[in-house]
C-alpha cells in the first residue's frame, strides 16, 4: 500500500494512493461541498461523474480548478479548498445551476430534504444573477414515482442506481447540452419502461426531480368518512426509521409511539404487517419444505432453489427480466397483500361489515408497494385488498399535519388479532431476515426438533451476496441471499443456467433490504443510518417473547378458525398469486 503525502488547506495529510482529494480532505475534517457526488460506504455504491463542479478546489501549479471528487491525490500536492478563487467559482457554478431550476421550494415535496436547497443556504445565495432559458419538460406520473424533470440537475445518481446498482435500465441521460434530460427510452413514461418501482432513484435524488406519488390525501379522506372502517398495517422496517423524521437518533425503535400516533390519527384498528409476515412464513416455509422433501424423494420436476416473493420490486424485476423462471419463485403473496384479504375476507366478516366498507391502509418503507396494491389480481370486483399504501415519509407528514407531538407519545400496543407478531415477522425488514424467519420455522417443521438458538448469524450482514449452509439435523440446506437487484441478477443468471447450488434464495430489491427502501426517510448517502436501522430490527426481534412464526397464537387460531392448514385450498385462493411475463412489454405501441 503506497502512501501519498500532501497538504490540504495548510494541513499535512497522508492517504493511500489513488484516494480522491474529496476523501483525503474528509479524513482531516474538511467537508468539501458536493452535489452530484454520492456514496453508500461499504455497499459498493458510488456516483462521481464529476459533473456539477460544486466541489472544485485549487491545486497549486494547475491552471484550472480541479473537481475534488474525481481528482486523485499526488505526492506533494498543495490543495486549497476555500480561497476566494474557489469560493467565487463554486458560487458561480451554483448560481448557474439555480438559474435553470424552478424556485418552487414552498410547494416542493423535497423541501427540507433537498440537497440543492441546503447548498444554496450554505452558500448564502440570496439572488440569482443569471437569467435565461429554463428547461420545460412534462411531468410523468407512474403508479408509484413522479418524474418532475425540470428539477433535475443532471447529477446522474438515479441513472447510477437504476443501471449500475439495480441493473434495471429504465433511465438514461438522453439528448445533449441544454436539452439533456434523464428519461426512459424514447422518452416514454416510466410506466411503459422496465421500471420496477424499487424507488432507489427517489432515495438518492438530491432534488425534487424524483418523488413518490403521495396517497396521504386519500388516507385523510378515508379517515374522515364515517361509513368506513379504516384499518392500518405497518411494515417491519417503518418502526426502525420513522423516528428519524422527528429528529430521533437513527436506529431508535418507535414501535409503540407509531401505534399511538396511528390511533390518534383515527385508524379504527392498528394492525401489524408483521402478523402477515408470520403468515407468509407459514405459507412460503411450507412451500419450501414441500419442494425440498419432494426433491429429496427424487422428484426431478420440482423447482429448486425456491425464491422468496415478498418484495414487489423484485417481483417486477423478474417479471421483466426472468419470465422464463416464473415457476421458480414462491407463489406466496407479499405480507402486504396477505394482510389485505385476511382483513377483508376474515376480519371484516368477524366484524360483520362488507369488505367494501373496510379501507385497508399500509405504511410501507417502499414505493413498489404502491404499485403492488394497484395490481388487478389483488382486487375483488374492483375493490383492492389494500386500498392505499403510503411511505414512512408520508406517515411522518400525516402525523405532523395532525398536530401530534410524536416524541412525547406514550408507547401503545397493536390491536388483536392482526397485530400480534413474532420476532420472525419483524426481521423481514432486513436483508436476510425473511430467509432467517423461514428457516426458524422450516427447521422445526422438518426436523420435528426444537431450535435451541433462533438466530442464524450466518445469514446476517450487509455483504451484497451472502451464502450459508445450514444443518437441518444432518441435511445440509444451502441458502443464498442477495439485496440490490444487480446482485439478484447474478444469482438468477446462475439459476437460469442450471448452476445454482442453493435450495432457497432470498432477494430484496433495495440495498440493505426494506430498511433501505425507497419510501424511508432520506439517508443522504449515510450508510451508517442503514446499519443502525438494521441493528434496531434485530433488537426488536431479540426483545419479542415469541420468535418463530408458527408459534404465533393468533396465526395458529387463524388456521384453525379460517384457513385450515398452510397451502390449503383457501390459502391458495387468498394468499398465493401468479406471475406475468412482462419481457415482451415494449416501448412501441402498435
Amino acid at each position, binding site marked *: 500500500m503506497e502512501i501519498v503525502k500532501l497538504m490540504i488547506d495548510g494541513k499535512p495529510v497522508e492517504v493511500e494512493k489513488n484516494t480522491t482529494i474529496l476523501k483525503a480532505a474528509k479524513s482531516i475534517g474538511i467537508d468539501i461541498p458536493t452535489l452530484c457526488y454520492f456514496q453508500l460506504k461499504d455497499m459498493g455504491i458510488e456516483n462521481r461523474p464529476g459533473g456539477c463542479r460544486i466541489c472544485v478546489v485549487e491545486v497549486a501549479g494547475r491552471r484550472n480548478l480541479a473537481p475534488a471528487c474525481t481528482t486523485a491525490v499526488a505526492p506533494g500536492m498543495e490543495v486549497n479548498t476555500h480561497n476566494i478563487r474557489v469560493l467565487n467559482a463554486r458560487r458561480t457554478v451554483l448560481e448557474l445551476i439555480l438559474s435553470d431550476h424552478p424556485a418552487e421550494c414552498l410547494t416542493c415535496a423535497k423541501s427540507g430534504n433537498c440537497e440543492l436547497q441546503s447548498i444554496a443556504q450554505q452558500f448564502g445565495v440570496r439572488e440569482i444573477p443569471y437569467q435565461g432559458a429554463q428547461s420545460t419538460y412534462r411531468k410523468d406520473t407512474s403508479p408509484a414515482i413522479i418524474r418532475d424533470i425540470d428539477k433535475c440537475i443532471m447529477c446522474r445518481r438515479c441513472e447510477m442506481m437504476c*443501471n449500475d446498482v439495480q441493473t434495471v*435500465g*429504465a*433511465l*438514461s441521460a438522453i439528448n445533449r447540452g441544454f436539452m439533456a434530460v434523464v428519461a426512459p*427510452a*424514447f422518452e416514454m413514461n416510466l410506466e411503459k*419502461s422496465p421500471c420496477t418501482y424499487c424507488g432507489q432513484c427517489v432515495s438518492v435524488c438530491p432534488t425534487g426531480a424524483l418523488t413518490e406519488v403521495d396517497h396521504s390525501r386519500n388516507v385523510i379522506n378515508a379517515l374522515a368518512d364515517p361509513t368506513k372502517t379504516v384499518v392500518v398495517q405497518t411494515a417491519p422496517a417503518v418502526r426502525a426509521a420513522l423516528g428519524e423524521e422527528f429528529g430521533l437518533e437513527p436506529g431508535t425503535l418507535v414501535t409503540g409511539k407509531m401505534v399511538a400516533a396511528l390511533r390518534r390519527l383515527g385508524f379504527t384498528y392498528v394492525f401489524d404487517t408483521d402478523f402477515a409476515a408470520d403468515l407468509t412464513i407459514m405459507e412460503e416455509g411450507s412451500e419450501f419444505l414441500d419442494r425440498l422433501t419432494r426433491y429429496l424423494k427424487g422428484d426431478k420436476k420440482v423447482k429448486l432453489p425456491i425464491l422468496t416473493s415478498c418484495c414487489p420490486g423484485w417481483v417486477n424485476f423478474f417479471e421483466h427480466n426472468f419470465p422464463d423462471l416464473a415457476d421458480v419463485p414462491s407463489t406466496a403473496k407479499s405480507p402486504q397483500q396477505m394482510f389485505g384479504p385476511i382483513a377483508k375476507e376474515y376480519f371484516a366478516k368477524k366484524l360483520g361489515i362488507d369488505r367494501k366498507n373496510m379501507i385497508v391502509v399500509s405504511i410501507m418503507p417502499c414505493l413498489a408497494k404502491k404499485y403492488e396494491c394497484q395490481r388487478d389480481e389483488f382486487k375483488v370486483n374492483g375493490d383492492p385488498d389494500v386500498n392505499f399504501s403510503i411511505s414512512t415519509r408520508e406517515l411522518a407528514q400525516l402525523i405532523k399535519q395532525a398536530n401530534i407531538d410524536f416524541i412525547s407519545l406514550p408507547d401503545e400496543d397493536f390491536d388483536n388479532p392482526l397485530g400480534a407478531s413474532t420476532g420472525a415477522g419483524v426481521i423481514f425488514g432486513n436483508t436476510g431476515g425473511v430467509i432467517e424467519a423461514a428457516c426458524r420455522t422450516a427447521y422445526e417443521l422438518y426436523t420435528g426438533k426444537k431450535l435451541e438458538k433462533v438466530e442464524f448469524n450466518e445469514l446476517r450482514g450487509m455483504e451484497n451476496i451472502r451464502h450459508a449452509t445450514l444443518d437441518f439435523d444432518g441435511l445440509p440446506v444451502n441458502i443464498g441471499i442477495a439485496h440490490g437487484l444487480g446482485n439478484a441478477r447474478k444469482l438468477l443468471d446462475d439459476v437460469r443456467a442450471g448452476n445454482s447450488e442453493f435450495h432457497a434464495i432470498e432477494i430484496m430489491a433495495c440495498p440493505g433490504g426494506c430498511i433501505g427502501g425507497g419510501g424511508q426517510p432520506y439517508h443522504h448517502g449515510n450508510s451508517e443510518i442503514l446499519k443502525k436501522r438494521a441493528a434496531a430490527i434485530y433488537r426488536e426481534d431479540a426483545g419479542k417473547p415469541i420468535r418463530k412464526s408458527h408459534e404465533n397464537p393468533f396465526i395458529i387460531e387463524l388456521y384453525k378458525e379460517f384457513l385450515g392448514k398452510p397451502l390449503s385450498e383457501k390459502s391458495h385462493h387468498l394468499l398465493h398469486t401468479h406471475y406475468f411475463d412482462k419481457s415482451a412489454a415494449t416501448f412501441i405501441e*402498435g
Partner: protein
Amino acid sequence: MAHIKLSERKLQELKEVCKSFNNDKGELINVLHKAQGIFGYLPAELQEVIAKELNVSVAHVYGVVTFYSFFTMTPKGEHPISICLGTACYVRGAEKVLEEFKRVLNVQVGETTPDGKFSLSCLRCVGACGLAPVVMVGEKVYGRVSPDGVKDIIAEYNS
C-alpha cells in the same frame, strides 16, 4: 409511435454486424453506425434489437442515439439532399441555397418531405471547393448552385 416491421434480411445483416463486434456493449457506437448504414436510420424497433444483441438497456441505446447528431431516428428521403456549409461554400452563398431548399420543400434541416421523396441535411466540405457552393443529391454532386437553380434540381427528381 407507429409500429414498424423491420426487414428480416436487414435484421439478419445487423445481427451479423453485432456478432462481428463480439456483441460487445463497448462497440455500441460502431454497431449504431453500421445499423444506420443498413437501415438508413435508427427506428425505435431497431434500437430494441440492438439493445438485446449487445445486452444493454434500450434507454442507454436511445441515450447514445440522441446524443450524437449523426444518428437519426427519421428515415432519409428517397433522394437525400445535402448542402455543404463548409467555409468555401458558405462564403459563396450556400446559406441562401439552403434557405431556398427549405422554402421549396417546406421542411427543416434533418426532416423528410411527407411523401418520403426528399430529406434535407447539411454537411461540411465534400472536397469540391472549386465548385462552391456544392449540393449533393444522393451520390450526385451539383456545383455552383444558386438559389434560382434549386427548383431545377428538385424538378429532376420529381418527374
